[in-house]
């Protein structure tokens, strides 16, 4: 039995190509049950549809619409652009990682790149965590950035707080009654602290923080829905980095699917920053960020060694160590090689610092951030590069 050569090249948007040689093929009748396969000739398939009108309603795979490759926008970081080709427009991109893994650095870089292109951006901030000074330092045009600060400051709650605002300087009893009145234990643990209540005696913060996260997530999702529908934004960012993963995982998959469908034909980059991937197959791109684990571990080990050996050191050496602001023991060996008055504080920093005039930048400059492409549904072939690294700098170096 000879078989017809059928080459599928849907990716190239070409139709199926059949072998020129007429050859018989076994084609089961899809609509008949219990009937044996019939030998038909593919050359006569043109008459098949006319023979069975039900087949005419089936769209051949060769005529199916092929989703065009999305337009890519720069993420603002060259290493990420090399890794992923940029951020896809009309798609959902997930960027996840633990604390201090460079998520906000990437967020601000993407915002800066988008505003440089003249696009309007929006950050739906679940935890009200964005720092305006960091945003400005990253080069984001503040006029083009809409910031939605989610939280428990709903108008109704705000009214009650304002009503009791004059009692702020009052006695703890009135504060406590106020906190109970507004249900602070359920939604706003900060109010509980302000009211001077014992957490164990009054509220279960684990449960309340979960409810708080869910309430904030609800605001985030509703706001995102409205913003996507509104249209006109080049970049929409969902910042749910500080939302508990247990709460974030409870977002229905249909919500992500709706977001994906809503942005599908729009020139909008939809970014979700989170601790763990939660959108499943709805995200077109999944990036996992992390700090340079090796260097940090080394530093951590050396620091632990420092603490362990602290008792055996002379006060002068301890004082010198404290002056170095956590310089590791391994770095002390390099002090001799370093120029006078300057020393290298860590292997990742690769920078020399003036120990006499320390600044924020000494700890924060050139933090090494790794990015791993975990999943990409943009191309059929897997990406060649699956991980990359970049460094971040401080903008307020002293």
């Amino acid at each position, binding site marked *: 039995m000879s078989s017809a050569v059928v080459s599928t090249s849907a990716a190239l948007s070409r139709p199926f190509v059949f072998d020129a040689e007429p050859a018989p093929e076994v084609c089961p009748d899809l609509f008949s049950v219990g009937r044996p396969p019939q030998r038909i000739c593919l050359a006569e398939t043109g008459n098949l549809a006319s023979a069975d009108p039900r087949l005419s309603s089936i769209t051949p795979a060769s005529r199916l619409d092929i989703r065009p490759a999305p337009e890519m926008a720069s993420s603002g970081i060259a290493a990420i652009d090399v890794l992923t080709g940029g951020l896809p427009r009309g798609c959902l991109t997930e960027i996840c990682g*633990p604390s201090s893994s460079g998520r906000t650095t990437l967020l601000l870089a993407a915002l800066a790149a988008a505003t440089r292109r003249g696009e309007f951006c929006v950050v739906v901030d679940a935890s009200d965590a964005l720092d305006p000074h960091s945003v400005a330092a990253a080069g984001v045009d503040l006029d083009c950035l809409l910031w939605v600060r*989610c939280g428990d400051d709903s108008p109704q709650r705000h009214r009650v707080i304002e009503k009791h605002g004059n009692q702020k300087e009052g006695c703890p009893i009135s504060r406590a009654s106020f906190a109970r009145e507004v249900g602070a234990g359920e939604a706003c643990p900060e109010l509980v602290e302000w009211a001077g209540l014992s957490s164990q005696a009054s509220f279960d913060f684990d449960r309340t923080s979960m409810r708080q996260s869910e309430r904030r997530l609800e605001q985030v999702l509703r706001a995102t829905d409205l913003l996507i*529908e*509104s249209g006109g934004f080049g970049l929409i960012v969902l910042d749910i980095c500080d939302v508990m993963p247990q709460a974030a995982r409870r977002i229905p998959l249909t919500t992500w699917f709706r977001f994906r469908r809503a942005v599908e034909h729009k020139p909008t980059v939809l970014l979700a920053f989170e601790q763990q991937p939660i959108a499943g197959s709805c995200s077109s791109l999944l990036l996992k960020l992390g*700090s340079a684990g090796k260097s*940090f571990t080394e530093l951590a080990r050396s620091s632990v060694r420092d603490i362990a050996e602290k008792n055996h050191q002379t006060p002068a050496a*301890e004082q010198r160590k404290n002056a170095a602001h956590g310089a590791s023991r391994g770095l002390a060996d390099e002090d001799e090689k370093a120029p006078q008055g300057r020393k290298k504080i860590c292997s990742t920093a690769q920078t020399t610092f003036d120990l006499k005039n320390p600044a924020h930048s000494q700890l924060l400059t050139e933090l090494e951030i790794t990015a791993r492409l975990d999943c990409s549904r943009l191309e059929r072939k897997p990406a060649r590069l699956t991980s990359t690294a970049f460094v971040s700098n*401080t903008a307020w170096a002293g």
Partner: protein
Amino acid sequence: MPFACIYVPNFPVAAVLRAEPELRTQAVAILEGKPPLEKVLAVNEKAASIGITPGMTKVQAELCTELVLRLRSFVQESAAHSALLDCAQSFSPRVEDSTCDTALLDLSGTESLFGPLPEIARALRHNPRTLGLDAHVATASNPDAAMLAARGFSDVTVIPSGQEAERLGSLSIEVLFADQPRDTEKEGEAKKEADRLLETLDRWGIRNLRALAALPEVALSERLGQSGLHLQQLARGTATRTLVPVEDPLVFEEAAELEHPIILLEPLAFLLNRLLEHLCARLASRALATQELRLTLDLDNHTGIDQEFENFGIPSESAVAQNEAQSAPQYFVPSRQGTFSRTLRLPLPMLDAKLFLKLLQLDLNAHPPGAPIVKIHLAAEPARPRSAQGGLFLPPTPEPEKLELTLARIAGMVGENKVGAMELLDTHHPEGFRMRRFMSESRHASTPQKISGQSEEKSAVTALRRFRPPLRATVTLENGQPTRVVCAKKKEVQGNVLWKAGPWRSSGDWWEREAWARDEWDIALQHIDSVALYRLVHDLLGGNWFVEGTYD
């Protein structure tokens, strides 16, 4: 020189029907006077057909059960009169405001814009309908002939030049005395004079204008004087006078007085929708838009209104002033006279009644008036409509109308001061910023410059994620430096300090009550399998330690 006249018959009734269009299918009578001596002032056709006539007492009119009685509303009549003038001004800049129900237009030169006179007349009749008024329209070669034709004939009348006497001849002689002066003092004298002339003409057997026009001028002058001659000239359509155009002050206000107080927001929205539609139609007729809407509600409960407002969270005077200083989009000012005011400021001139209604609804949901409403007053500040042309190669921007609605909805969820653009303040305070209104079109003109100016790509910047409010922490110190941090609220923020940098001391506002002084430390803590960087702050005035944020 062609003139046109727009005349609204039964103006008091028309004003009420404009505010309550659902009454158009019913018999309506308008009452005037102080209780219990109210009398019927005007009636519509249906009321006239069932025997209701002006001058009847309220008790007599109430015998008819299907009759709807309404008190005369000068507020609604004023709004209807403004709408009539707006309609006239949309066709010609030279408009005479002769009486409350009549507007005269100079149409010279408008043919090239609106076509021949019949088309203009039809358009003039159609336009008031969009504003809720049924009008009669007539055009003639002089204003008085146009006015007589509008008052005498229904629908549209076009009188060619030279045919005035012939066309006006069939009109009743009462048409000449239908002009009601606005001044109430002169009204009585004018009415007496009109009655005297009418009686005289009636005794002569003069029933229509044709008969009056045919009288010999000298004999008429001898018997009735100059007024008689003037009436004859009017009847012949040969009276000439100069049109006195008015300069409209561009006041766009609509009001509705309610017989029964409204408690729920839903029926209020229904009434607001009607008022907004009228306002937008008037603005559109003048090719204008609005950037500010003022809603004033007269409340029923005068006593204890302050308490009600307090329950709904009225900000203090300082808070209102602060909002204004920060160019807050909306504020409301309760007064002691039992009124409730809200001002809706828009970033750009807009003209969309549905959008305005949604915005007002969202605003009233967030700030309910707190007492039953007896009167609604809505005013729009006119502004030139925005003219913007999007560039072919510019990135898309949010539509201002959609964006405004979206922002209002989001503000309803998260709070008014929680959505917008950030603006840095000239201070070293760590939270030295404020929120301001986000506008999508403010930087259209400057976009190319900004793009070219910022073409240089910056490298990634280590960013701070703030904990708002900062997390209180227990810090163990050795030699004045933190070695261990424990944060009760965040379990992951605790442990030995792996490395640290600092302190960096800063202080400010020492001349004010909100003085601050702090030492900042950058610390690294072990976080499961990685290291996390935090900013630790020592409040020098309070003596407490806080974890202010994490570097991410």
